[in-house]
């Protein structure tokens, strides 16, 4: 492909310029994107990237005209071959020296060890709506330091791509394995050429639609077209590599030994010991949002991580593993891939999103986004255990059968003459609903605060009179509470509107409803069953004038059933019985079924089917 300045005659070349009429709802269109990976015989890697784009809206001009290039400042060099803009009148603007800057990524400013990784910020100047930008840069290893050529390339981006070419140029004896996923609708071609001792593998894609990443859902990239590449042959090989990296980083360390001894003083229960160590790693070590794939899943020695008090997700897992070993516990570091659709034929550590530690049948995670450590969170994930022997190394689902996720709520309430409510609540929490891990080791104020918050989610404005909350085990907890609710006020028309609890509120989760359709898989909060039964004895002088009809929402992934019944003889005080059953029987919702789940969530949020209207007789 010719590499002369295409911008010089770009207006003439692009007779049919892509514009907003061709790409409605797009901020820009990428006309050509080329990525070229070269692996040299000595192990050095060179990555070259060329992109030609037309800017259609202000948003792209303002937010996408700075390109950050991550590189290792001591092992790599960044060369900018071209950073140009073709303005609407044909004027060509080249980015001057002061428009190419180096910064430390913000997420590394609390991690001195990793500040060898820097961003080269290539800023384009003269960018206009309707103008073109051309960027051509390369990142070259100055010496071999990377563990081979492997990675995951997301093929779709924030703007549609008319043509994308990816080339891998390796020594003839290096044969990469490739995995292509989710490329429906994008014409893909590939070719392999062996010539003069070099092997060139080329992929070409056309008309890749934009991938909308504006939703913050954690699986937003699931389903995005991608190309995975690497040299590994078997998962056993990859698992063993991981085990060796963990082993290298967990050599015996006096500080770890001393700390473990101190932390576990007086604790005999093995599970409590593990949780105590987990708590220390979670709270006492700052989590650095630096993906370990950038350092090929190597970790600093666990003792260094402990003493420096910061680390990546992976390093924190390795530290916990080292602490467990110091405590005499068996443990294994595992990586988890949350994408349920990911096939296991693509051999690459980079597909794994999170690091966990398995001990005594429990999986524990130490990053700050997930404050709980339990097997249930891993259901549906693909797991890679860092072990050098034993089968299988690739596992799907939790390593042991879970106790089941279940929440059972019973409320008995009586409305008094002043319209206040009194009564009791009995709740059993199991599996994911059990707050054990969340509250473990927390002081009593925090536990009481949690209980108050939970009761408030079950019945609006409910206050606890007395309560007993028992952490029975890591699997179950129970709550028995006496409740009081301030008098319910009639509205200006003399009506009382009582909204009974929504399933999502009591379950402590939310399903976003502002996205009406998806292209990515949606993660539900976990399989589980919630039941709510409420008996409310009304004040004698009140009568129900509206109660919703029984409802049942059935989808393939969730069912929700709500039922009201009014009991009591004519003229006597009435009792309202409300029951609700939410059954989540999937971990993930594929895009084609999201609408049904969304409709159910909308119904639950708006509360029409759980609102009772009362009036004075």
């Amino acid at each position, binding site marked *: 492909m010719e590499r002369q300045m295409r911008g010089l005659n770009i207006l003439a070349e692009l007779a049919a310029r892509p514009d907003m009429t061709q790409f409605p709802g797009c901020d820009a269109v990428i006309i050509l994107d080329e990525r070229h990976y070269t692996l040299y015989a000595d192990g050095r890697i060179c990555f070259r990237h060329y992109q030609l784009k037309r800017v259609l809206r202000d948003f792209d001009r303002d937010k996408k005209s700075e390109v950050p290039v991550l590189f290792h400042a001591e092992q790599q060099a960044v060369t900018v071959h071209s950073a140009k803009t073709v303005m609407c009148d044909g004027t060509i603007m080249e980015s001057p020296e002061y428009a190419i800057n180096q910064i430390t990524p913000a997420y590394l400013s609390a991690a001195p060890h990793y500040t060898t990784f820097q961003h080269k910020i290539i800023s384009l100047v003269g960018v206009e709506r309707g103008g073109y930008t051309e960027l051509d840069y390369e990142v070259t290893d100055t010496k071999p330091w990377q563990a081979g050529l492997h990675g995951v390339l997301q093929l779709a981006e924030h703007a549609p791509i008319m043509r994308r070419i990816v080339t891998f140029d390796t020594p003839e004896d290096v044969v990469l394995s490739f995995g292509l996923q989710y490329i429906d609708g994008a014409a893909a071609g590939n070719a392999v050429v062996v010539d003069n001792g070099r092997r060139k593998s080329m992929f070409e894609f056309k008309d890749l639609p934009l991938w909308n990443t504006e939703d913050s859902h954690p699986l937003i990239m699931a389903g995005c077209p991608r190309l995975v590449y690497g040299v590994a042959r078997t998962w056993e090989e990859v698992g063993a590599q991981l085990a060796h990296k963990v082993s290298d980083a967990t050599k015996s360390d006096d500080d770890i030994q001393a700390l473990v001894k101190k932390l576990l003083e007086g604790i005999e229960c093995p599970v409590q010991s593990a949780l105590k160590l987990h708590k220390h790693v979670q709270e006492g070590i700052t989590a650095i949002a630096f993906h370990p794939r950038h350092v090929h899943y190597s970790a600093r020695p666990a003792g260094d991580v402990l003493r420096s008090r910061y680390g990546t997700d992976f390093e924190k897992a390795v530290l916990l593993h080292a602490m467990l070993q110091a405590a005499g516990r068996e443990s294994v570091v595992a990586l988890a891939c949350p994408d349920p659709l990911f096939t296991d034929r693509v051999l690459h550590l980079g597909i794994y999103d999170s690091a966990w530690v398995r001990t005594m049948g429990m999986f524990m995670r130490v990053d700050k986004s997930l404050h709980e450590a339990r097997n249930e969170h891993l259901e549906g994930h693909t797991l890679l255990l860092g072990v050098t022997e034993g089968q299988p190394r690739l596992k799907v689902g939790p390593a042991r059968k879970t106790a089941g996720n279940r929440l059972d709520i019973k409320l008995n309430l009586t409305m008094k003459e002043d319209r206040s409510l009194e009564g009791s609540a009995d709740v059993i929490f199991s599996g994911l609903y059990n707050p054990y891990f969340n509250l473990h080791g927390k002081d009593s104020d925090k536990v009481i605060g949690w209980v108050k918050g939970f009761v408030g989610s079950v019945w609006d404005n409910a206050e606890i009179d007395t309560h007993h909350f028992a952490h029975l085990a890591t699997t179950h907890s129970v709550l028995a509470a006496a409740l009081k609710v301030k008098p319910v006020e009639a509205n200006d028309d003399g009506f009382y509107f009582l909204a009974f609890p929504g399933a999502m509120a009591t379950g402590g989760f939310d399903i976003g409803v502002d996205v009406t359709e998806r292209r990515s898989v949606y993660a539900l909060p976990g399989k589980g069953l919630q039941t709510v039964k409420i008996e409310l004895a009304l004040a004698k002088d009140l009568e129900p004038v509206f109660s919703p009809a029984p409802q049942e929402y059935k989808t393939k992934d969730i069912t929700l059933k709500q039922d009201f019944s009014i009991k009591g003889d004519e003229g006597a005080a009435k009792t309202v019985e409300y029951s609700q059953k939410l059954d989540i029987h999937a971990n993930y919702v594929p895009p084609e079924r999201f609408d049904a789940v969304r409709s159910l969530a909308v119904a639950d949020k708006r509360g029409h089917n759980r609102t009772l*209207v009362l009036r004075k007789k």
Partner: protein
Amino acid sequence: MIDGREKDFIKTDEEKRKLINAAGGEKEHKGADIVVVFDHTWGHVDVSGLGNLYTNRMVKILTEKGAAQQSVLRFDYDPRSYLNNVLRLRIHRLAGGVEELDPGDCRDVMQPEAMLYWRVKMKLYSLRNLQVGDAVEYEVFKKGFNVAYLKSAGDRFDPDSWVDPETGIKPPMYGAFYDIVYFREKVPIKEKRYTVLSPKRMPLSFEFYRGDCRSCCLVDDEYYTYSFEKKDIEGYTPEMRMPGIQTSMPKLLLSSIHDWREKSRWFYRMNETQFEWNEDIKKVVNEVTAGCATDDEKAAALLHWVAQEIRYIGFSVAQGEGYTIHPGIMTFRERGGVCKEYGGMLVTMLRAAGLEAYAAQTQALAPVNRIPADQFDHCVTAWLKPDGSFTMLDPTWAPFSMQIWDAAESTQNFLIGSPEGENLGVSTTFTPEDSRLNLEATSTISPEGMLTGSVSYWGRGRSDSTQRFMHSWQPAAAHDRLFQKMMSELDPAVEITGRCFTDIMNLKESFRSTLEYRVPKYALVNQDTMYLRLPLMRLLLAPNLVRYLTAADTPERKFDMMVIFLQLAEASETITVPAGWRLASRPVAMDLKNDSVELAVNLKQEVDELRFSLRFMTKERYVTPDTYKAFREITGHGKNLAERWLVLRKEQGGKC
């Protein structure tokens, strides 16, 4: 440092240990992860205006989280404008003993930056094995310039090009010193002290704001010694919508210049050469102003061109980047810059159009205090009209705005750089009417409870630009989600059936949005009774419409709530009900007002239509913690009304 005075400022290790012990622990400072045992700054000012300031600070660790936080210390500096050298770094261990760390053992790297790449640096120190109860102490020396002013010194001395021979730092303004010192942090401070010595020929003006402190000024043969001290300072938790720290925290301002005019003339002189234009600029100026009948129209047209065509991006092209405007020709060519380039580009284009204009400084969203310290963080344009009055223009804040000066910058101080020297000025005070929002809605409820309707809204001032921002500040792919989210306030089950918008680039007319929708089963229907909420009233809970109706979301506040712009919202809706259905609920008539907010609502039925109207107005820029309760009470009535179910009954034999 002034010879022999160190002993006055640095405590002995024995004294420090006592202070560490007396500082208390987690129990005494509930909720805090660290406590500042002491924070002492002292130093002197050179006649050049160069500050030489030492700081000795000690922090005691109270929790594991605090230990993790303190394990990496960061010291920022800018090689071209100020130094920040770590002289000493120590850990006072809980178990006893003091560890001395090597101040040279650090990572000296670029700072994280975004959009503004000024090549500033930082030194990162990794403190190993920190434990709860340990105390971290450091001493740093800061040397740099903040503000300077030219003194006439004859031909041989050019203060504008003078560079400090020791550091290579070039002062922006030779001969002046200023400092802004805050006396409160998010964490508790046991003792904070600031002491500065200035030569006797260089006295300092100073003032302490928002609270008090122990202060003194001592005089000897050579220096004035100014000292300020405060003890047992509570930490604070930031609140939503609180003003910036400039206006919410106790602070000390000091300055060796005493007249804003000096600063004005300096700013003029520093930048006056930057506003030349070329043929390309002139051509665009002619195109943009073609058809403008008056100078006001020309100025507005040029302002909007700069606002829309210049992209916000900052580069460091020379020393003194913070106060030197890039040449207009360069900004025009690169179509990029930060506020000073926006301001400078407009000065350039106004001058090319034959109008007289100057660059000016301001502090966005906060008043400038009277001590002439450099409190400015923003640059704007001043157009001098033939009658001698100035019209202020802010192109940086004008993208997708019909305004020439943003309503959020109401009553804001500025300083124009002019050859004669100007005094501190103050911008226009905007009224709620200046950011008026109109909403008109019609809807129909079916006997089965299905709601169909449409809502149109448009405004002026900030109420107009806020709606344009919905489109321009978000990627196009996110628009569906944004409007779905907004309309979900009306009902989560809403289905948007139509959207119509006028051109967001047309800044001559209000931007108008119309959304059509339907909501199946909007009302609860029970034979002859129907319960429904007011659709438009529910939609008004969306924060991008009536911004402050839902702002009072906490029962009380410790800091002022800042109302970014005063707003008047007038909304009306006609809800057509099925024939024969009558409103059984009492009509709504509400007229509530106090000094900070007004809310008036009416609802009545006329034949088969429910007529709803609302008027909401925010009237004060700062809602104090004392007046917040009353503000919350009134806005709470609005929120309650949005939650209220109205009752409709089907007429039977002419009666309901």
